């Protein structure tokens, strides 16, 4: 669909907020779903870029949070209000918050926070029985994103930076372990983790989750061509529980959110 850019703001460093409007674009958008953006018309760059839903603004508008890292996202950074942008989506399964969840632990590394703000918002709006806490890590101060938005939502945050430029110095798994040490003795029933970030971080988080028997939903990334399940280009190795062997599943279609226990890291 053709969307119209309503704002595209360089927050700081290489991070941008992009807001687009199109009829119905936000209507079916669940937390953790994503869109495929054609950043420029023509054949180079050819393929669409996958970007997660950051926030639903209304039925007819959504917001993205993206990091300019290469050719496609650089072009995206040059869009101005009024420009049109060819978008398909929402796509993918998104995060599912089960009925038994009491504590949702959101775990973000760097730009991985993008889909988690929308998840926090969704839970706060629809599930008053669930407490949301967020563990947000980044390389340095400028990589801790969406802090203000989480604060406004009233989400308790545990922050850390690898260089210690803001909050505590360390990686996000340290803060999770501390939290667990402190609160787990009274029971982890109903605790679930929802994570997005670099693969190494997700693997670390998963080790903690399985040690404490906390269900862990991880949002994964892969190079994509179609985004709709047709090309088989975006697979990751996932354990097929019935067969007991790993199989290739599509991030775009079977994911991007997987039961982390089944991911072959």
């Amino acid at each position: 669909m053709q969307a119209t850019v309503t704002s595209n703001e360089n927050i700081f460093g290489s991070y941008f907020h992009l807001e687009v409007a199109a009829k119905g674009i936000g209507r079916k958008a669940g937390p953790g779903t994503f869109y495929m953006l054609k950043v420029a018309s023509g054949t180079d760059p050819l393929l669409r870029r996958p970007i997660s839903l950051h926030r639903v603004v209304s039925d007819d508008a959504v917001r993205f949070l993206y990091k300019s890292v290469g050719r496609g996202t650089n072009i995206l950074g040059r869009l101005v209000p009024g420009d049109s942008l060819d978008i398909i989506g929402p796509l993918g399964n998104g995060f599912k918050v089960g009925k038994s969840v009491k504590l949702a632990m959101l775990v973000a590394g760097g730009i991985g926070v993008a889909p988690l703000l929308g998840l926090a918002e969704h839970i706060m709006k629809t599930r008053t029985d669930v407490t949301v806490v967020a563990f947000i890590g980044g390389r340095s101060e400028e990589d801790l994103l969406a802090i203000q938005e989480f604060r406004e939502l009233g989400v308790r945050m545990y922050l850390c930076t690898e260089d210690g430029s803001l909050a505590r110095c360390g990686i996000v798994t340290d803060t999770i372990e501390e939290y667990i040490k402190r609160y787990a003795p009274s029971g982890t029933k109903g605790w679930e983790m929802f994570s997005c970030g670099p693969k190494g971080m997700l693997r670390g988080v998963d080790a903690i989750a399985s040690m404490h028997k906390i269900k862990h939903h991880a949002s994964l990334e892969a190079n994509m061509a179609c985004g709709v399940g047709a090309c088989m280009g975006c697979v990751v190795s996932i354990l097929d529980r019935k067969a007991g062997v790993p199989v290739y599943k599509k991030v775009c279609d079977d994911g991007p959110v997987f039961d982390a226990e089944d991911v072959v890291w």
Partner: protein
Amino acid sequence: MTKRKTTTPPEKQVSLAVELGPLKMKNPVCTASGTFGYGEEYSRYYDLSKLGAITVKGLSLKPLQGNPPPRICETPSGMLNAIGLQNVGVDEFIHKKLPFLHRYDIKVVANIFGNTIEEYEAVAARLDRAAGVHAIEVNISCPNVKKGGMAFGTDLDSTYDVLKAVRGATGLPVLAKLSPNVTDVVPFAVKAAEAGVDGLSLINTLLGMSINVKTRKPRIANITGGLSGPAIRPVAIRIVYQVHRAVGLPILGMGGIINSDDAIEFILAGATAVSVGTANFVNPTAASDIVDGIKKYMIENDIADIRQLVGKVDIPA
């Protein structure tokens, strides 16, 4: 009573129907194998009955896991893929995927491959008995394990043998999808004709490679992969042109078709019908838009029947 004059002229009738040998299509637009899943994936975007045909992902005798990721990367106006022919296998295709396509007024082309001639034969025989399969496209760009892993499609004798075997295993129309990774495709097209196939699919992906200069590693895990997209179009046009002049078989042309002008270019070079591949990824409605675009081109250029255009590139004397 005198007839009232109409202010807008009635829409001109144009005929888009084509025949790839015995395979009759209501229009010349098909989708390329491996780029359209099993059809269902794109049925959310438009009515598949709009197309002349669809070609499904390559099928093997047994399900196949395919290659480790990363499997794809973007290249200038194209992409490399090394999916490794991951597919559900011919039996699951027939039972779980094919019934969905019955509801559409569309020809279904089943693309097949194998590692031995016997596998090709067995897959073709199973599809031959399946309701709702209208043609078989034989991908011969696969390693022949009994001949040291050299692709069937790069050896003239293997090309003949495998196509002859498939021809014998089915009464359905057979299209041979030849490998472009040879010095001259024409002798292979001649062999395919001798083996008795009904048409030729040209071209499959070109073998390519891309390196990340930061990490100094290949950008896909398989190291090399198949190049597709607009980057390969001139090569595909050249091959279609050469083969059309040399061999009488109808051609299903493909390679980098993005819009209807590209499709017309293939038809002028000698293709009877065209397949849309990588373009589906870029624009989910690409194949459907191309049907509309061809029709518009015909109306604007006074072409009553699309078959009139086949091979009509105007080569100056």
